[in-house]
């Protein structure tokens, strides 16, 4: 008997019990559908996060800090060592260090991270936000190489500013899509929002207010400066900028290294009068010996340079942080997530496998006489086992194919519903599910394998049917 004959017999048997075969296959369909939806969600999340990290150029970024923090000691619970690393005198991150870092092979650019709080006034509204200084060379990189509207600032000394999309919302402005009338939602109009054309936003003036220490006040009442929090000896500094570009909103998964509200040219921002601290801790910690930058952002040319450049910087006595350090943990985390999600699908498939066993055992009970007849006319045990085994395989294959279809439909619906819910909160469109080819082929192969395993017992039971008993005349 050829393989084709065996397959025809198996298919014929399935066709004869259409409803039962359909229900059994449906069980596998649901199992594979669940497995595929779950795992594709895991891989989708992983892809989104990885892409977000890539989009933010985090794979080529190193953050240099003054303190050499012993993360490993901290993670492994060696608190003394971890704390000890803070206590050692740290070198200062100043311009000469910056030059040394720039001299390391593979370094593309390095600039100190200058961020400070400020308040902006524009279009009759005000918003509190963070200001970040960026060199004009950042124009080449994400997210600044793909501005929503306008252009990056021309040089490091001009009075241009790039606004982050979320600041516009704080300024109660909603941008209208070019060439389209975008009505405001009832909620937005009640909150006093207004629609503006991007062209009229670009080039508009914006006033930046920062806080500086008022020397006069300090001199007038030196005691008050150290005793109370009321009437601190500070005054406001006001500067005018022109909006040159607007950053697109972040997708839900971008961790946002560049999440400041407003970006200013590096030298311009550096010269803005401000208090040199972002928190009270910075103030307490500031001594003449440790004057310098808090941290430095280093960009390497290629991903593979990250490790070596970071090592060179650490050798200079500084602490480094790059996403590469975390990548292994991130991958492990996703492996756990995928396993947990996959487990749900596997349980569903396990139930389906029990369904297959049940259906086939029932079918054997019903077909005992038929099996006896097949043996009487010369069917060998191997052939009878093969017929039932193939039946199980066909159930698994068909269930797998339709399960992939079901998984696809379910994830499409979930994607639409999920995005609909998230878009209400202003989150841009996200693809939650990802179907790499290995997942599709793997799910199908898994379905067939599980079904074949489920078919092992019924098939061997069918092969062991005693023809004498099966054919006994009742």
């Amino acid at each position, binding site marked *: *008997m050829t393989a084709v004959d065996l397959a025809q017999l198996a298919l014929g048997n399935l066709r004869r019990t259409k409803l039962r075969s359909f229900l059994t296959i449906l069980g596998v369909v649901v199992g594979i559908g669940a497995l595929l939806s779950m795992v594709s969600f895991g891989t989708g999340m992983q892809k989104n996060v990885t892409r977000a990290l890539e989009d933010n150029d985090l794979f080529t970024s190193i953050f240099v800090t003054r303190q050499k923090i012993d993360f490993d000691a901290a993670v492994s619970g060696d608190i003394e060592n971890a704390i000890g690393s803070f206590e050692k005198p740290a070198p200062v991150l100043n311009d000469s260090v910056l030059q040394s870092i720039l001299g390391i092979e593979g370094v593309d650019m390095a600039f100190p991270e200058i961020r400070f709080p400020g308040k902006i006034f524009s279009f009759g509204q005000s918003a509190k936000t963070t200001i970040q200084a960026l060199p004009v060379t950042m124009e080449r990189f994400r997210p600044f190489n793909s501005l929503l509207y306008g252009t990056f600032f021309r040089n490091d000394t001009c009075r241009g500013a790039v606004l982050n999309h979320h600041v516009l919302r704080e300024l109660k402005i909603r941008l209208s899509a070019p060439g389209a009338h975008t009505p405001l939602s009832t909620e937005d109009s009640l909150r006093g929002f207004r629609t503006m054309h991007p062209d009229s936003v670009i080039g508009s003036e914006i006033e930046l207010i920062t806080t500086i220490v008022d020397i006069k006040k300090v001199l007038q009442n030196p005691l008050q400066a150290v005793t109370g929090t009321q009437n601190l000896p500070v005054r406001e500094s006001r500067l005018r900028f022109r909006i040159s570009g607007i950053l697109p909103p972040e997708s839900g998964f971008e961790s946002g290294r560049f999440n400041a509200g407003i970006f200013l040219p590096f030298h311009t921002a550096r010269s803005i009068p401000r208090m040199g601290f972002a928190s009270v801790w910075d103030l307490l910690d500031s001594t003449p010996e440790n004057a310098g930058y808090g941290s430095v952002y280093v960009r390497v040319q290629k991903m593979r340079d990250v490790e070596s450049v970071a090592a060179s910087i650490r050798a200079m006595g500084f602490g480094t942080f790059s996403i590469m350090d975390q990548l292994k943990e991130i991958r492990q985390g996703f492996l756990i997530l995928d396993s947990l999600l996959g487990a749900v699908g596997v349980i569903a498939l396990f139930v389906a496998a029990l369904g297959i066993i049940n259906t086939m055992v029932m079918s054997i009970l019903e077909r005992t006489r038929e099996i006896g*007849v097949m043996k*009487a*006319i*010369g069917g*060998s*045990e191997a*052939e009878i086992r093969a017929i039932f085994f193939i039946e199980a395989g066909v159930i698994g294959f068909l269930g797998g194919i339709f399960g992939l279809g079901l998984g696809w439909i379910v994830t499409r619906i979930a994607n639409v519903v999920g995005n609909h819910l998230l878009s209400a909160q202003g989150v841009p469109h996200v693809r939650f599910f990802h179907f790499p080819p290995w997942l599709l082929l793997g799910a199908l192969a898994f379905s067939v394998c599980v079904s074949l395993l489920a078919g092992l017992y019924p098939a061997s039971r069918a092969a062991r049917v005693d023809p004498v008993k099966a*054919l006994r*005349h009742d």
Partner: protein
Amino acid sequence: MLFTYKRGMSFQMENTMIQVQNLSRTYMKGMVKVHALRNISFSMSRGEFTAIVGRSGSGKSTLLNLIGGLDTATSGHLIVNQKDLTSMKRMELAHHRRFTVGMIFQSFNLIPSRTALENVSLALTFGNVPGKKRDLLAAALLSKVGLNTRMHHKPGELSGGEAQRVAIARALANHPVILLADEPTGNLDVKTSAEILDLLVALNRSEGVTVLMVTHDEKSAGKTAHRMIQLQDGRIIHDISSRGPQ
């Protein structure tokens, strides 16, 4: 010509189709040991038509199942077509059932979901007949047993006589040298029974196929068979040839 059987040669050994030597079959029925066959011996020549008669439980069907390779003996030897079944592996027994013997039963044992043609065709499938030839061959076999018109009917739509003809066609599918019939007329009326017996006799005569038929109807057995073996409690109590007792 569809069926050609190798005719026996002159000497005795070649001419013996079935040789039963001290054959016993016991099995457990709950806690009780049942002796279905007790140390029986006989032999059958090629082309012989033998009837085995006896009451229920005398061991007739057990003997037939042993010769058919559906069951295995507890002790003794059973040589069919010069091969000892008692030393055969399961795979060899399947081959024996497929090519050496053809079996028909009282309750026909056709597969109800398959048409007459498909039932015969299934046996040909097990006989490794290529797909294209199967239907033609099955149709020819059905015509041979006188069932030209109802080939595409399922067993439920056939009369008892017609169903038994389909079973005979199926039994003949892979050119067996022995036809084993277990109460082939047990479910049929007198007229149809006579027709089926006539068919078996015709096959025995024209094709030279050895027939071993189990029946409780001694009267008709005596008319059709060359020889009648009577069993009682697993033993042979009479062995009568139409040419006189053996």
